[in-house]
C-alpha cells in the first residue's frame, strides 16, 4: 500500500493558531469583541460559555466559515485573507466537526471520507480509499463503510464525521459542540474517539460543555461571555479556583 502524500509539514516553532484583536459583527450584533488567543502545536483547548457568548463564532472564524471584520487569524503561519488560495490552505489544515454531523446523505460513509482528498488532489482514489479505511478503522466503524449516513446512529455518524475530517490530514481539529445533538448513551463513544485523538498529539480546539472531557484532556480551558474571553487556565485551576464571578456562576449552573 502506497502512503498518501502528506501536506507540507508545519513549522513546529510556529503556533498552530494565532488570533489577534479579532472582531466579528452579525449586522448590528457585536459577536466577538477583541479576541486574542495563541494555540501552541499539540495543545488541547476546551472553550465553554453560555449560548450567544461567541464560542462557536470564534472557532468558525479560525477556518473562516465566518469572515471577521477586524483583527487577524493565522493558521499554520498562513494569515486568513480574502485570497481563495490562502483560505483553502487554511481549511485543509484545520478539520472541523459540527454539532449536527453534516455528513453528505447522498454518499456512502466511505465516499464521505474520500470525496475531499480526491477532489482536492491530495490523493488518488485508491490512496484515498486506503486512507479512509484506516481512519474509519481508528474510529471503529470500518464495517459500516458502505452504508449511507441515515442508516447509522448519531454517535456513529459523528465518528464518521471525525474520520472524514481526519482524511484531509489536518494539523488542527476544531470541534463545534460535537456531542450536543447526541442521545446521552452515545456521548461517550464520541468523547472516547476525541480522547484517543488527543492522545495521538493532535492540536484540538473543542467547544463543549463536557467538563469531564475538559478535565481529562484539556491543557487550557477558556470561558467566554459576551464576545470576550473572560478567563483561561489549566483545568485544575479553572475548575477549583475560578477567578471571575461570571465564571463561578456559569460553572455553578453547569455542575448542579
Amino acid at each position, binding site marked *: 500500500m502506497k502512503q498518501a502524500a502528506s501536506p507540507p509539514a508545519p513549522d513546529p516553532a510556529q503556533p498552530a493558531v494565532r488570533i489577534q484583536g479579532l472582531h466579528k459583527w452579525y449586522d448590528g450584533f457585536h459577536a466577538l469583541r477583541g479576541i486574542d488567543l495563541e494555540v501552541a502545536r499539540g495543545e488541547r483547548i476546551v472553550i465553554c460559555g453560555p449560548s450567544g457568548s461567541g464560542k462557536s463564532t470564534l472557532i468558525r472564524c479560525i477556518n473562516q466559515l465566518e469572515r471577521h471584520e477586524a483583527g487577524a487569524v493565522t493558521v499554520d503561519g498562513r494569515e486568513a485573507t480574502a485570497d481563495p488560495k490562502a483560505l483553502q490552505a487554511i481549511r485543509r489544515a484545520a478539520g472541523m466537526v459540527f454539532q449536527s454531523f453534516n455528513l453528505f446523505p*447522498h454518499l456512502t460513509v466511505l465516499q464521505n471520507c474520500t470525496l475531499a482528498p480526491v477532489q482536492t488532489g491530495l490523493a488518488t482514489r485508491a490512496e484515498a480509499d486506503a486512507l479512509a479505511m484506516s481512519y474509519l478503522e481508528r474510529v471503529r466503524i470500518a464495517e459500516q463503510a458502505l452504508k449511507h449516513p441515515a442508516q447509522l446512529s448519531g454517535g456513529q455518524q459523528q465518528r464518521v464525521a471525525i474520520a472524514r475530517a481526519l482524511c484531509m490530514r489536518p494539523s488542527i481539529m476544531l470541534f463545534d459542540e460535537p456531542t450536543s445533538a447526541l442521545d446521552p448513551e452515545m456521548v461517550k463513544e464520541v468523547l472516547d474517539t476525541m480522547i484517543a485523538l488527543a492522545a495521538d498529539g493532535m492540536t484540538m480546539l473543542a467547544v463543549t460543555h463536557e467538563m469531564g472531557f475538559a478535565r481529562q484532556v484539556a491543557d487550557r480551558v477558556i470561558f467566554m461571555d459576551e464576545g470576550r474571553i473572560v478567563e483561561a487556565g489549566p483545568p485544575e485551576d479553572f475548575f477549583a479556583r475560578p477567578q471571575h464571578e461570571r465564571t463561578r456562576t456559569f460553572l455553578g449552573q453547569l455542575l448542579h
Partner: protein
Amino acid sequence: MTQASALSPPPTPRGLRVALRGLFGSPGNIVLTLAVLWAAWSVAAPFFRWAVLDAVIWPAQPAACRDVDGACWSFVVAKSGQILFGIYPIEERWRPLLVSLGLLVLIGYSLRPPAWRPSLAAIWAIALPAVLLLMFGGFAGLSYVATTMWGGLPVTLILTVTAVGGAFPLAIFLALGRQSELPAIRGLCIGFIELTRALPLLSILFIASIMLPLLLPEWLLPDKFFRAMIALLLFAAAYLAEVIRGGLQAVPAGQAEAAQALGLGYWQIQREVVLPQALAVVIPSLTNTIIVMIKNTSLVLVVGLFDLISSGRAALADPEWSSPAMETYLFIALIYFGLCFGFGRFAAGLEQRSRISQ
C-alpha cells in the same frame, strides 16, 4: 395463544372483499357505482365501435373510406410518412427516419444513470451536429434540404432535445447565479428569469421569428428554425432554474459548510455535494416542467415551422380524402403520449432510486 394474537396486529382486510365493500357497501355506493359504470359504458362502447368495429385500416386508399361509419385509419397509414416527416422530399425520407430513430435511441441511452459521465456530453456534442448535418445534406451526394422543408417527428425531437438538454445546464447556472454573492451576477440572473417568465412563450417565439430580423443585421441572424430553438431553450431555462432553486433551498446550509471546511472549492461543492441533493429533491417538479416543455415545442407552428401537429394538419389538406381529422390527431396524440408517458415513467424510476440511496 391469546397472548400471541394480542402482540401481533389484527389482519388488515384487503383484496376483492375491500374493493366490493367500497363499491357496493351501502345503497348510496350501489347507486354511484352503477351510474359511473353506465356513464363509462356509454362513452367507451361507441368509441370502441367507431375506432375498431366499424373502422377500416386497409387498403390505404381514399376509396376504402367511402361509406364507412367508423374511423378511417387508412388515411393515417397512407399519410403516416407526411405526418411524421412533413414536406421533406419523399425520396429523402430515410434521412429524417434515421434521425428520429437515432435520437430516440440516444435519448433512451442518455436517461440511464450509468451513462451520466463526461463522455455523454461528448457523445451529444458529436451526435447533434451529425443529426443536423444529415437533415441539411448538401454533401457526399446528399441533396440540400432547407429547414423550411423539415417537419414532423424529427423537428419535435430536435427541438425537444436541444431546448430541454440545453436549458438544463443553463438553468443550473441561473439558479446558482441567483444565489451568488456578486450583485452583478445575481441581478443578471434574476432579471433574465423574471423577464422570461413574465412573457408568454408565444410572444417570445414571435419576437424570435419576426422582431429579431428587424433588429439584427442579416449576417448575424440565424435561420428561423434555430431562432425558435433558442427561444424554446431560453424559456425552458427560466422555468427549470426556478425549480432547481427550490431544490437548492432545500439543502441545509450545513452541507455546503461541511464541504467548505474540508477545503473544497465553490464548483466542487456545488457539483459533488449541493446539486446531487438539490436535484433529487425536485425530481417530480423537474419532470413536470420538462413534460410541459416537450409539449411546448408544438407551439413553433405559429411561426411557420412544421412540428408533428402542423405536419398532420398539412396532411389533412389533401382533397382526395374526406379529412379524417380525428384519426390524425389521435395518431399524433399517441406519439406525444408515448414521449411524455415514457419520460414520466423514467422519472418515477429515478425518484425511487434516489429515495433508496438516501
